[in-house]
């Protein structure tokens, strides 16, 4: 039990973050995360080695999809509602993107990005979250989603293109340093040679 709880502490943030961004509701995400950990403990004998995080997130994703199916059968409040409002608990910012410097995100921009993620179909949303927020490689994403590499590439490509279009529609929220990239999309003009 202690050893398992160490794993829980190590991976609970990733698990909860995935559930939250997919379900877009804090209570549902907490329930899904807890159920996923209980299920993981109960079925620990089925873990055959490899990435425990990938195995765990697959269980989380299954819990998420179960709840999304139920929500589709009983649509209630908008799935666009997210936790990034002024009264929400403070988000602890992690450096999730190694390499290039991070862009400082305003609350409005974060809300815009979350809203953009919410417009994606669940499979594309999961691919983008696992790749760009969880920092997983394609093999791990394929393991988590139970799909092939080609499917991962396809979903990620379509998901990012959709996000790109969504941000282009809300270019006013983008930092000035990057706004011009998307303004060129808006104008519909081909970009001058960047040389």
């Amino acid at each position: 039990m202690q050893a398992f709880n160490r794993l829980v502490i190590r991976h609970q943030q990733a698990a909860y973050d995935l559930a939250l961004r997919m379900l877009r509701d804090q209570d549902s995400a907490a329930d899904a995360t807890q159920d996923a950990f209980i299920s993981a403990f109960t079925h620990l004998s089925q873990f055959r080695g490899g990435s425990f995080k990938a195995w765990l997130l697959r269980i989380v994703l299954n819990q998420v999809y179960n709840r999304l199916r139920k929500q589709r059968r009983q649509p209630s409040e908008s799935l666009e509602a997210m936790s990034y409002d002024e009264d929400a608990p403070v988000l602890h910012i992690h450096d999730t993107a190694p390499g290039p410097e991070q862009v400082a995100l305003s609350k409005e921009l974060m809300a815009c990005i979350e809203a953009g993620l919410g417009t994606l179909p669940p499979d594309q949303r999961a691919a983008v979250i696992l790749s760009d927020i969880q920092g997983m490689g394609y093999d791990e994403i394929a393991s988590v989603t139970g799909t092939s590499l080609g499917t991962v590439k396809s979903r990620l490509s379509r998901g990012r293109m959709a996000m790109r279009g969504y941000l282009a529609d809300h270019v006013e929220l983008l930092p000035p340093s990057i706004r011009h990239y998307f303004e060129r999309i808006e104008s519909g003009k081909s970009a001058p040679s960047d040389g």
Partner: protein
Amino acid sequence: MTSGNTRPDNGITHEQVLAEAASYLDGELSREESARIEAHLETCPSCRQVLATLRVTRQLVRSMPQAMVPRPFTLEQAPRRSALPALFFYLRAATGLAAAAFVALFAATATLPAATSTPGAPVLQQPRQAPAATGALERPTASQPAAGAPAATAPARAAAPTPLGAQAPKAAPADAARAAATTPPAPTRAPAVTSPTAPPPTALPAPAVTAREAEAAKRAAETDQGDSGVALLASLQAAAGVLTVSLAIATAAVWLAHRRRSP
């Protein structure tokens, strides 16, 4: 701007570039594939612009902070392994047993009346009436409200052909035990009240009536027991049927719950 399907000199289309853009940005392409895309980008401003916006999009999403957990998700105690699989197994077995019991009881109920009842005997109605109906006396109905009277008429009839009291004591042992147990002592005039079709008492010899009535009483007792047995079987059969249906519903509910909780 070239159309999406035309091939620049490096042999890759715009659509192929856009389809591979995400993999290219993530470094998931082979060296050769990356080189082809870079060669295309050098000559295609529109694709370069798309790549640039995709790169920025990816960076923005990657800049999103992970949400803090609202509470620890550690397990305080080992969760009880779901009892659903075992429960499903036992419920299914119990349902099968209940169904088998129901079928067996149904078969027994269907065959038992033929084995225990005598022709013409109203086996399920008034057992007390049986002797009067099955004995030498043609007593037609078993539904006389004065239940004691027909039973009591046997000893009375037995006494009828003879002087009062002379033969009755002999017939009484065969019948009175039953009659006394269930009915008050019968008046000697009972035959006139309840047996319209009974032959005149004077027509029956006393010893034959006694033997016949003893035999009828014995058969009546057996039928009594048979009737009671059939009723009991019918009750058990009904109970088994209800139990089978209840267990089947419970089994289905547990199965559905187990399916939902699978990881």
